[in-house]
């Protein structure tokens, strides 16, 4: 296959919380539920730890999309911090849209530790949605798009 005919493989960074969604990913893994390798998971203790800076760094670093997942509302291990993630997500999305990053590139989902299958299915869905959007290719005029993350996916 030549460079031009290779299908676009989105690079997605997923921030998962330790207590619920990361365990869901674990569960999917141990149960051999297949989900797309395009997503690279980063574990936070809580979705409330998600600093919008991480999302921006991901985009600048070559990611085509970012997923944030945490415990269901009301189930946060630290009581209420997933609501902070919810509010930050809404505000961040508005800012990203003004910067020209489509709202479909940022996803927030809630998944409990028992929802491995749901977690895997959502990721697969997200990958296809981002594939349809195309590569983000965030770069300044005259500079290269960051490639380290992308190379890792194709390796």
């Amino acid at each position, binding site marked *: 296959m030549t460079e031009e005919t290779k299908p676009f493989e989105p690079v997605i960074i997923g921030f998962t919380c330790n207590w619920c969604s990361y365990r869901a990913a674990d569960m999917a893994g141990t149960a051999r539920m297949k989900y797309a390798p395009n997503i690279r998971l980063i574990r936070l203790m809580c979705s409330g730890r998600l600093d919008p*800076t991480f999302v921006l760094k991901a985009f600048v670093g070559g990611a085509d999309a970012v997923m944030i997942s945490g415990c269901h509302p009301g189930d946060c291990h630290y009581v209420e911090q997933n609501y902070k993630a919810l509010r930050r997500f809404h*505000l*961040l999305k*508005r*800012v990203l849209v003004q910067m020209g990053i489509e709202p479909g590139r940022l996803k927030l989902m809630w998944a409990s530790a028992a929802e491995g299958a749901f977690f895997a299915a959502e990721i697969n869905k997200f990958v296809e949605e981002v594939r349809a959007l195309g590569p983000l290719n965030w770069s300044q*005029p005259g500079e290269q798009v960051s490639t380290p993350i992308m190379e890792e996916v194709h390796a």
Partner: protein
Amino acid sequence: MSKPKFAMYWAASCGGCEIAVLNIHEKILDVDANFDVVFWPVAMDAKYKDVEAMEDGSILLTLFNGGIRNDENEHIAHLLRKKSKILVAFGSCACEGCIPGLANFSSITELVDTAFSTITTDNPENIRPQSSYAMPEGIITIPTLNPVLKTLGQVVDVDYYMPGCPPESHQIAAVIDLVIQVLQGKAELPPKGTTIGAGNSTVCDECKRTRNVKTIKEFRRIQFTHTDPELCLLEQGIPCNGVATRSGCDARCPTVGAQCIGCYGPAEGVVDYGARLISAFASVIDSNKPEEIDKILDGLVDPAGQFYRFNLAGSLLRSSKSAQKG
């Protein structure tokens, strides 16, 4: 023994930094006494060729203000870097892009097109300025605009950063004092890359208004309310950026009832100023329901502008997608 050389230059700037330097009043005498001003286009007639003729590293201290908007700004930035021992990014434009950095929301084509097609512009042939144009007498040139505005640090190595739009005069005076003490061997320069002439905390620390736990049910715009002069503005729903903005200005704007618009740039340790504000503002919204959250956020009519007003060029994203397309 000759005095150490001093230079000050403006790239894409408004001249406010020059005025702030003049507003140190008597202190300008100390600059005069301790330095040899070799290049300062606003104040004296040395030209670019005079700088080019100087030895590399022969200018001890250069204060560079203004953003890098065109190829001339970029050329002079490289030239002054070569000729200067200490290069300071002076003022918000050089540090982080400042207001001209807002141009990075649009492509350079859009910027020029808008200027040359306003309702009063008489331009039937849709002319745009050319970097090089042949007149009957010869070819005359103007600089080429770069596709996005850059900060000084994005084009050359910077030694120190002095934030503010403009830096407050008492801070400028303090920095001049420090440099003179260094010259006299009485003090040491801070580590390279330090932000000088400003505080290490946030504007909130200098603001005298009363602060309580914030629970915002509505964002208000300043013209629609008579604010309580004693209470924190953010608490009253006025979007004040003091929470993430570096201290050093004495919180002048909140003192007179105007929200902090963030001209002193990010507080110490902040990687992306806008992200920090997104986090802070979102944290104090008083709702956990998505529809209600959205409704409250509708009160911020321009979030990207609110959070990146002075900092867009210096932020992580630096420019919008349409600016990148050219």
